[in-house]
């Protein structure tokens, strides 16, 4: 891969510089037949049987390179994961970037390589892209926008409308690794112990769905963390259930806990980019757990709660704390600002 020393406005102008950037930086990374013609649209093969799934995401992360990943890897993994938790096999991805004039070429190279690696891990090609450059001061280094196309195989149905009282809640690994790593980097907290959990989960999800019936819904706890996922599910689940999580069963790494203590944050609201929250029928919960743990990305999976009857006047999402009390977990702003008090 060859990248210029710095990105110039010309790299986004659509002329020779753009062509060179695409051929020398992007094309070698995403090499595949659909992308190669560099036509206005990628022509894919016949769609496999099933329902089409389509998702899109914008990616802005500060810092763009962090322990465990970078903007490019994050962008692709995030899009793959949106498809995966919808039960879709990823079929094709797009990867567009908006660059700020003056951005070091090395940063772009890192992001492209990250995107390539994530796409390879997920087994899905990047078939289309775009490059724009905005004048210095009008951007923030690199922004990425992705779209993902997938297919949900016939007969597979996942969704929050299937979730009901008695169902169990599991997470595929420790919570908040990504969010804590990013915030630690921004606030000058160092150390080797923090690493984003970012990873494409298509393989883990297929491993699970191929072996266990009774999974109702899957979600990736990105912005807003596990708490947001719980509220989202309850917003669509029929009836008026609640969710009870058990603090003593929630996996959180000590380093993540430390960052949260230092900055006044709570891991239950922090983003993960390589975890899934699984809602399943109670009788298959143990099976879900052992199947998840067979897979490298699910080794630390844990059963963390239940979907319960919601009592009169009770909040939707409750935490049973270590000390045995109940605490509501609200969908609130204000958990994202570091505080001193």
């Amino acid at each position, binding site marked *: 891969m060859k990248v210029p020393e710095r990105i110039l406005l010309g790299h986004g102008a659509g002329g020779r510089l753009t062509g060179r950037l695409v051929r020398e930086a992007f094309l070698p990374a995403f090499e595949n037949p659909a992308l190669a013609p560099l036509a206005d649209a990628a022509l894919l093969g016949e769609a496999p049987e099933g329902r089409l799934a389509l998702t899109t995401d914008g990616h802005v992360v500060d810092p763009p390179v962090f322990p465990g990943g970078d903007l490019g890897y994050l962008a692709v993994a995030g899009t793959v994961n949106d498809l995966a938790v919808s039960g879709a096999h990823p079929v094709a991805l797009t990867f567009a970037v908006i660059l700020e004039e003056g951005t070091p070429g090395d940063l772009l190279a890192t992001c492209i390589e990250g995107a390539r690696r994530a796409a390879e891990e997920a087994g899905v090609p990047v078939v289309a892209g775009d490059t724009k450059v905005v004048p210095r001061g009008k951007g923030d280094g690199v922004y990425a926008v992705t779209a993902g196309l997938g297919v949900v195989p016939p007969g597979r149905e996942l969704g929050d409308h299937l979730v009901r009282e008695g169902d169990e809640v599991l997470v595929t690994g420790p919570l908040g690794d990504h969010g804590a790593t990013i915030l630690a980097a921004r606030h000058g907290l160092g150390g080797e112990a923090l690493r984003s959990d970012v990873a494409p989960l298509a393989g883990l999800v297929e491993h699970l769905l191929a072996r266990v019936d009774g999974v109702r819904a899957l979600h990736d706890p990105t912005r807003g963390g596990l708490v947001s996922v719980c509220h989202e599910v309850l917003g669509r689940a029929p009836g008026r259930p609640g969710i009870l999580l058990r603090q*003593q069963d929630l996996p959180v790494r000590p380093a993540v806990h430390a960052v949260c203590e230092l900055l*006044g944050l709570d891991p239950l609201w922090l983003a993960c980019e390589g975890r899934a929250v699984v809602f399943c029928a109670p009788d298959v919960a143990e099976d879900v757990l052992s199947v998840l743990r067979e897979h490298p990305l699910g080794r630390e999976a844990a059963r963390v709660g239940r979907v319960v009857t919601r009592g009169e006047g009770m909040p939707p999402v409750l935490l049973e704390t270590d000390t*045995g009390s*109940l605490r509501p977990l609200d969908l609130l702003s204000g958990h994202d*600002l570091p505080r001193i008090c």
Partner: protein
Amino acid sequence: MTADPFRDRRTVAGLAREIATVARRLPRPVTLMEVCGTHTHAIAEAGLRRLMPPNVRLVSGPGCPVCVTPVSWLDRALALGRERGTVLATFGDLVRVPSSTGTLEELRAHGGHVEIVYSPRDAVEFAAAHPEARVVFLAVGFETTAPPIAAALAEAEARGISNFLLLPGNKTMPGPLAALADAVDGFLMPGHVSVITGAEAWRFLPERHGVSAAVAGFTPADVLAAILALLRRIARGEPGLDNLYGRVVTPGGNREAQALLARTFEPTDAEWRGLGVLPGSGLGLREGLAHRDASRIPVDLPEPREPAGCRCGDVLHGEIDPPGCPLFAGACTPERPVGACMVSSEGACAAWYRHERWAREATE
């Protein structure tokens, strides 16, 4: 989550049972007040209020520095922030607090430059890196936070970083305690303030006011242990001072920090929302540091507007619990806060809204 002896369920249960035992010997129902936003938060988060026997009432006092800061101070901060070339540096706690003309967050959306910092040092570094800007650090907090702010100021002086200023707003605890001592039977004293002041700073409470005080840490076990110590004294009728956070609180406190405070600040009369002006309860910059004092910069101030119906003041001195305010959970919620007690996560109203409304026994 990792096993933590300060959160051990059996320890908490054991302490709660002992509290119930001692409470049976109390001469009358008692009111204990905590005066620390972090205690408010810790009590609510661990659901400790529901562990109290019926004759023990835990109330929140004016311990949230954001909540007790009057609207007029924040109005001045925003007015400064609107000046061209001024950057406001602030702790995250202040960003969503309503002033008469909006919040700092709204100011930022309208083009004001607001830097959120974790440490006052970050603000000094920002000033050093941006000599063209006038950086005004919004100095709030009690005795725990004032020394770091003083240290950052000293660093700015030593390094000749002349564009770093403070809007002084720090307050000290003894003032409100004296004002409230007649209304309560015991005080939980803030553990980290006490690291700076020393436990003996609170000796005046039992000696001059006949009210017991217990220095408390912030874990569930720490808080319960301090409550137990207070109840034991009340039951015996022997007011006194106990230090339950001896692992970081010494009788004399941090002398270095105290000396730095004395070199940097001097006591001023300060307005506390809910308590009015308390003499000598604020920390103003010494005359020699006038060049660092952003409160001397003339700005146009609006008429301070306390929202109609807001009873933050009464909540702050424990006269009512949050549900006693007509706006609570109706017009005033964490999503649309009217008063500071709801905005700050340390505020009694926010804590009550999020936790106490739902306090129930955990199902087995």
